[in-house]
């Protein structure tokens, strides 16, 4: 039930902001500070999420095969690999390390 509540709230919230962007007259929110903040918020959220989903195990921080997987993804990104290949690199390296007992 909790999962459905979370899904419902996310559905409504995400659709509302998408629609608001199309309906609200641009000049009301197109102030430089608001635009800058809107550009920086995803940076902060994505950085925190990347770190947490790589190093978190519940409430403890761990260093496991996922870190190597993320490293592989970073290398693939620097080599300008396409999106799917970057994700595949992370998955394959993580699985490979676990297979050999990492």
């Amino acid at each position, binding site marked *: 039930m909790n999962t459905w509540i*979370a899904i419902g709230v996310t559905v409504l919230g995400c659709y509302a902001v998408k629609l608001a*962007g199309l309906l609200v007259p641009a000049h009301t929110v197109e102030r430089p500070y608001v635009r800058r903040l809107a550009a920086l918020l995803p940076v902060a*959220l994505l950085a925190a999420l990347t770190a947490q989903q790589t190093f978190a195990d519940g409430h403890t921080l761990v260093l496991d095969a996922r870190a190597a997987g993320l490293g592989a993804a970073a290398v693939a990104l620097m080599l300008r690999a396409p999106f799917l290949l970057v994700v595949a690199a*992370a998955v394959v390296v993580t*699985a490979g390390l676990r297979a050999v007992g990492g």
Partner: protein
Amino acid sequence: MDQTADGADKPDAAVVRDALGVGVAVGLSGFAFGVTSAGSGLGLLQTCALSLLVFTGASQFALVGALAAGGNPFTAAAGAFFLGVRNAFYGLRLSQLLALPRAVRPFAAQWVIDETTAVTLAQPNRRAARIGFTVTGLSLYVLWNLTTLLGALGAKAIGDTRAWGLDAAGPAVFLTLLAPMLKTATERAVAGLAVLLGLGLLPVLPAGVPVLVAALAAPLALFVEGRRRGRAGQDGPDGVEVDR
């Protein structure tokens, strides 16, 4: 920004090709979401509902990640919501470019995401922008939902998603979205501070909350930036920023 200044022609076929390229490539990654969501303990219906109704990848990954970590549903939804706020700013730009009739906007809104915005902004005129938006939106929506379903079914078939390294897909997706945003020192500082806050507070705060606190790195960086500029007095009084 004002496309009347640049009314260059671009063949419709070229626009469709660009749009399909993005739509297909990113649409296929719905598979990663389906697998991750199922691996996080969500049911088939819940996983598909997210792709059909939320349809903004980063928020979907964030939500299932937070739920898997045992987060409160509202905290989990808040993280997903704040990630989705950027779509409102995409919509502001797109509504100028596309000039959609009011009756169409509620339907077009669901497709206002990173990829459709990137394709639409790259077009030279309104006709191309409309074609680019529609083709990217449609191909991405159809594929993303199909591959979500396949991924969720596949995850069930393969059993332990961790053994297959699939728990590394989520962070890799986030990193891929994040990397092109790290253009200046401010963005890198925000990312670094957010990582410190997100990891440092993880042991002490309820699941999902550290990410929300980490989001404060953004206004904090703007505040420091503003003060520094005020002291240096090198820019205009309002510190107008040029983005993109």
